[in-house]
């Protein structure tokens, strides 16, 4: 994504839009979500559809606390040191960047 400007204003343009756009449609819509929604996954075989569900407001309100699942979720937590090692493996380098000011104020938040 890049932000572009013209006499008429500014907007967003996806870089390499054609290539990426096609990749997305193929990998997500067709093979992924649509496949699941139809009860078929990839090979055309009918698969279990129990995983096909949304998360509606009603679902959330009716939810019952699941302590076991919470503990499981917490078990996947990593330390800052582990995260730093992971970042290094991907050649991610931390840098200082100031927060953006709100458009109205331009005064900075930080």
């Amino acid at each position, binding site marked *: *994504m*890049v*932000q572009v*400007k013209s006499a008429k204003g*500014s*907007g*967003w343009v*996806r870089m390499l839009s054609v290539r990426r756009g096609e990749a*997305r*449609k193929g*990998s*997500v*819509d067709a093979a992924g*979500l649509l*496949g699941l*929604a139809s009860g078929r996954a990839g090979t055309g075989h009918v698969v279990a559809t129990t*995983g*096909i*569900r*949304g*998360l*509606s*407001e009603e*679902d*959330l*309100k*009716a*939810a*019952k*606390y*699941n*302590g076991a*699942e*919470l503990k*499981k*979720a*917490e078990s*996947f*937590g*990593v*330390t*800052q040191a582990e*995260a*730093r090692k*992971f*970042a290094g493996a*991907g*050649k*991610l380098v*931390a*840098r*200082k*960047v*100031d*927060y*953006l*000011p*709100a*458009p109205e104020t331009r005064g900075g*938040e930080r």
Partner: protein
Amino acid sequence: MAHTIKSALLSGILLLCFGGTAISADLFQDLKKAVEQGSQNKTESGQPRSSPSKGIDLGALGSLTGFSQEEEVAIGRQAAGNILGAAPLVKDDRLQQYVNRVGRWIASQSERPDLEWHFGVIESNDFNAFAAPGGYVFVTKGLYRALQSESELAGVLAHEIGHVIKKHHLKILQQTRLTDMGGKLLAERAGENEQIKKLIGNGGEIFARSLDKKAEFEVDRVAVILAARAGYDPFGLPTVLQDLGHVAKDDNRVSLLFKTHPHPDDRLTQLGEAIDGRLDGIKGLTLENRFYRMRP
């Protein structure tokens, strides 16, 4: 995916918003009494707060949240346990480990690097993401599947992290509940805390509440910067938002997201005005190749 989703996350997020419906009339009476008594206690802001038996001090309302970090985490655990009751974790340990590494690295660039952050992908085909106080962040499977790079995931997680560091949900909770439940919001590492349960209500309704639009725009701005600080291409979130903007409004997968958040197009407009060329010189990594692809 464009059309799919992406972003949702972003927003979706959110948080928990501790809904007002869960508070009882009795509780409000207790609060009112506590206010009248002018009790005192120690709060995060350093202002005095009442002892457990004396109620609350409302002096901190309107400024900081009035919750200690311990209380915040306890509230977040309850909220996280509730949403996991509605949508459990996707059974893919490598996926869960991956999002925790990405998320913790981004959170490390924020003002709250020392929180015990937890991230997870949950079983839902919706396009959404959620954040709970104390550092609990969840992305739906539907949204995750729509992502194409680690930088896009970073953008989504960073938006949620923004809600946590800005304490948006706690501020709403403070405004709507006006209480510390008699000072008993103490963290309990195991099991539910009845007082907290009473505070945020049963279930995950807090996740279905909307935040102020300004709060969403604010954390969008925070997200692109946290991603940039972490070394990522800062435009992961805008990319996701653009894709979400292509999802039909009547698509059930975005119904909750669109109900609780400004439309992605409006968010992009706001974000574009805020960026206004400020990130022109900031490049970053997208890491498409390292992005963990979920099993079919």
